[in-house]
């Protein structure tokens, strides 16, 4: 019984610890850094549902981030911000609209797989950006859109955004946890392993894929909504940014895709490293090289990501102790697939700058 409660307890402790930081006098620049870290943690965790559990490497998630941001911004062209909390009240709607837009898109895109799927989804990102630039009547085009800033006091300005993002992270992780423990998760694992075979033995392949995609992009859209309110000014190239997609994917791979904690760990490591390096290496772009180095070194040492590698080590050690002579107790072959099987599907970061 005790073991059963460990998962949720670990989650609660993590959320409480992280949630207490804005109340213990942490400096603004640190909180600001953590706001972005939580943003990426929530999005990586949501992406992991599709990219990790279902094995569909979406590169289009940043499009839903942008959609969420623009829904918020457009809404507050016609409504006023009084208490500052109004943008948060709008989030459920943002999530639903994101999911509803995601549905027909997934219906088409999820007929393709692997690298083709990655390319089809990244198209959505550029379509979104183009629309945001050109539907000037709605989006203001290149001028961007402003959301009236919230009248929060300066010494705790980050706090509400921080806490709402933490809530979104908790939702993403909660959904992941529930999914993994249910037959939805079992079905997704089968889809990832061999989708045709899964369909042929009666797994509701289409249903679980659609459901997962819609939930995932719904959460992503809500993160975009919070971001828009936090920045209070958005532009097409930052709302629909390939770098966001790349960040999400790298973080999930680094921490370990298909695991509950991997994407969160990856986001904390990479986002904090990036912000720290940008801060210490200053105004030049060398920090991007250092950032890439962090990623490369970890992936070379742990090609399946940090958590799966540690778990596999623990597992084989435990088993060796349990049955020392069993020939099957050799180190397990990669259960979650190595990063290599996505190698073709993830364009290098510089590929997106063309």
């Amino acid at each position, binding site marked *: 019984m005790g073991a059963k409660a460990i998962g949720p307890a670990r989650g609660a402790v993590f959320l409480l610890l992280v949630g207490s930081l804005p109340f213990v006098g942490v400096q603004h620049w640190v909180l600001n850094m953590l706001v972005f870290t939580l943003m990426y943690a929530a999005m990586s965790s949501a992406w992991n549902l599709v990219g990790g559990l279902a094995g569909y490497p979406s590169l289009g998630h940043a499009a839903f981030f942008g959609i969420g941001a623009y829904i918020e911004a457009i809404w507050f062209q016609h409504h006023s911000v009084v208490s500052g909390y109004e943008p948060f009240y709008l989030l459920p709607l943002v999530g639903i609209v994101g999911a509803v837009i995601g549905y027909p898109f997934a219906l088409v895109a999820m007929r393709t797989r692997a690298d083709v799927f990655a390319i089809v989804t990244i198209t959505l990102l550029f379509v979104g950006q183009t629309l945001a630039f050109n539907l000037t009547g709605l989006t203001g085009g290149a001028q961007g859109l402003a959301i009236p800033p919230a009248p929060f006091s300066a010494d705790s300005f980050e706090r509400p955004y921080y806490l709402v993002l933490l809530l979104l992270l908790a939702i993403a992780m909660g959904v992941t946890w529930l999914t*993994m*423990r*249910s*037959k*939805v*998760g*079992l*079905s997704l*694992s*089968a889809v*990832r*392993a*061999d989708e*045709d*075979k*899964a*369909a*042929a*033995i*009666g*797994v*509701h*392949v289409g*249903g*679980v894929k659609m459901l997962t995609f819609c939930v995932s992009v719904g959460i992503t859209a809500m993160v975009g909504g919070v971001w828009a309110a936090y920045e209070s000014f958005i532009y097409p190239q930052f709302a629909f940014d390939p770098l966001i997609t790349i960040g999400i994917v790298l973080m999930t791979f680094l921490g370990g895709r298909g695991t509950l904690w991997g994407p969160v760990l990856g986001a904390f490591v990479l986002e904090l490293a990036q912000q720290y390096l940008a801060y210490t290496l200053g105004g030049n772009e060398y920090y991007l090289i250092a950032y890439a180095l962090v990623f490369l070194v970890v992936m070379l040492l742990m090609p399946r990501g940090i958590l799966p590698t540690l778990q596999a080590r623990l597992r084989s050690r435990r088993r060796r102790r349990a049955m020392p002579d069993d020939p*099957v107790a050799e180190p*397990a*072959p*990669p*259960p*979650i*697939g190595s990063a290599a099987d996505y190698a073709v599907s993830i364009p290098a970061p510089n590929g997106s700058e063309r």
Partner: protein
Amino acid sequence: MTALLEVKDLHRSFGPVKAVDGASLTVDEGSVTALIGPNGSGKTTLFNLITGHLRPDGGSVRFGGADATTAGPAALHRRGLTRTFQQARIFPQLTVQENLVVASGFTWRELFGRRINPRDAEAAQRLLEEFRLAHVADLYAAELSYGQRKLLEFAAVLMSKPRLVLLDEPTAGVNPVLIETMEQHIRERNAAGITFLIVEHDMGFVMRLCDPVVVLDRGREIFVGTPAEVQQNPAVLDAYLGA
């Protein structure tokens, strides 16, 4: 007996290779029918055509009295037709136990229930014990040996409640004791009303279990009869000796 599966004049080529070239056969409800033939005679291709994994170039398939020529594998599974593969297709990233549970078929509501509930675990455990896989229940299927994978896929088929099961060389690489267990299972399931169509090279297995036997050569059937008749038929011997 009525025909559960009727295959008429099926054709399928891969470039110049006519893998299935005018094959016809009938599987009667309640039978255990064998499909034998030399290597490359088109047995697996015929299975792929019947189960919707491949589209035929010509001909027709009827299953349970309705057309099934263009139906996909998922639709046919819903109608009660399931199969195993010559190269066992299990889910390597799922545990052995999970491989069985995922094959048991669940409703939309069950989808949101526990990944493995006690009832699933019990049903899986029973089969795993019989096939001597209980001690590897929690290993990833990727860690199984070739023979163990064949057993696992066979056991997984038994988790659902099909009308017709197609087995592609179920005994290849499986040890003799477990082959007997398989035979026993096929007999039991057959007595309970499940029909089997089995591709098999192990003639002992075919003789003990199957009737009738359909012989395929170069993509079409050349003989149908009881096991004893097949063994004495000169055309069959010719086909096997490569005349």
